[in-house]
């Protein structure tokens, strides 16, 4: 059967993608950010997944205000990197895993989570920046990402976004869905976005290292407590865009201990301020 063996958590700041694409990774400003992902790049080579479920949010790219799905799963064969207004990122197209994605959709909807099913979607920096961070630069034409990806988009743009508790429980449902897939697949689930940041209004630039580090502690050791954090705490403490952290709870809820299994092992933890307007956080958890 398929099984989820690990989860990866990371911010998905667009400027990180721009720094990579413009060859700025060794500049003093960016060097510490990329240094923090050296371990992860090696780890993902050594523990190569057969497929990654990548939880992210679309930033007014594939979804305008015409349609705003709260949870959307990509079931397509492939996804094109989007032009977000600056031109598309020079990265390879993202190959999907339609068989597992369709299986997850069927199972998770039967577990009372009403997913939107997406068969055509361009993917923005929310999805491609985590891939770049964990897999390094890839030639847009000759290159390819090392594994197929199931995009899982969460609305965190228009409020109210789903609660942390609902995201955590959705992760549990995804784990059950994966474990009922007959093919023997090694699956990773990534939760992206965050950490503290605010991109709007006179409070723009807000960073809260204490909140972020307490969240990282909680996510590793007491995910139930992390799932109980109300929206207003994210907004007040981590900035209006810090609410993206609810997406990390989907990946965390898919780990074995959320349903009575063994506690995962944290093999990497990294935190850095700033990348542009944002605090960068990164964790890797392995099921034991």
């Amino acid at each position, binding site marked *: 059967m398929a099984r989820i063996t690990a989860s990866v958590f990371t911010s998905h700041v667009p400027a990180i993608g721009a720094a990579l694409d413009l060859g700025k990774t060794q500049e003093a400003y960016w060097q510490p950010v990329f240094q923090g992902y050296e371990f992860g790049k090696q780890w993902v080579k050594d523990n190569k997944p057969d497929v990654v479920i990548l939880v992210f949010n679309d930033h*007014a790219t594939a979804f305008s205000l*015409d349609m705003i799905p709260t949870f959307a799963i990509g079931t397509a064969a492939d996804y094109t990197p989007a*032009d977000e207004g600056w031109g598309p990122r020079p990265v390879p197209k993202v190959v999907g895993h339609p068989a597992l994605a369709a299986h997850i959709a069927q199972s998770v909807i039967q577990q009372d989570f009403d997913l939107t099913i997406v068969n055509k979607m361009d993917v923005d920096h929310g999805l491609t920046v985590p891939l770049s961070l964990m897999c390094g630069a890839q030639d847009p034409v000759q290159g390819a990402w090392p594994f197929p990806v199931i995009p899982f988009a969460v609305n965190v743009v228009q409020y109210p976004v789903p609660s942390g508790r609902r995201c955590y429980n959705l992760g549990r449902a995804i784990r059950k869905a994966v474990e009922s897939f007959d093919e023997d697949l090694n699956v990773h689930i990534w939760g992206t976005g965050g950490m503290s940041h*605010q991109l*709007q209004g006179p409070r723009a630039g807000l*960073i809260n290292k204490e909140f972020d580090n307490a969240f990282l502690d909680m996510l590793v050791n007491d995910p139930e407590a992390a799932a109980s954090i109300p929206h207003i705490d994210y907004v007040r403490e981590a900035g209006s865009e810090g609410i993206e952290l609810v997406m990390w709870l989907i990946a965390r809820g898919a780990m074995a201990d959320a349903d009575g299994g063994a506690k995962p092992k944290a093999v990497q933890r990294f935190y850095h301020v700033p990348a542009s307007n944002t605090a960068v956080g990164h964790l890797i958890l392995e099921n034991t």
Partner: protein
Amino acid sequence: MSLDKPYLDVPGTTIFDAEQSRLGYHLNQFCMSLMKADNRARFKADERAYLDEWPMTEEQKQAVLARDLNRCIKAGGNIYFLAKIGATDGKSFQQMAGSMTGMTEDEYRTMMVAGGRSVEGNRVIGEDGTAQAHRQPQGKH
């Protein structure tokens, strides 16, 4: 029955909720249209004429023409949509975010490199942090 909006007392912050989204629908969809290169070119050639193709309010159009992002947000804009205007102008996300604070680009960048804006005094309206109304606009320029 009133809706639960516990975020209204956060200073310097407008939460893009269902009501703001309703107010800003056409403004935000105008922004989406700028994801196409030929629309960006048409907008740049005659901004007013391009805006007049959209059923936006005059206030929304004026806010866009003035590139006043705080005013755009008040009129229902959302930053991820408004970012398409910045992209059209060749601005980075940091330049856009900084433009809402009253700080210069250098002042804002320096604040971020130094660890960002502190949450102290900026949690609830009425405290004395940098994002409070009585401290606006920020910056020394």
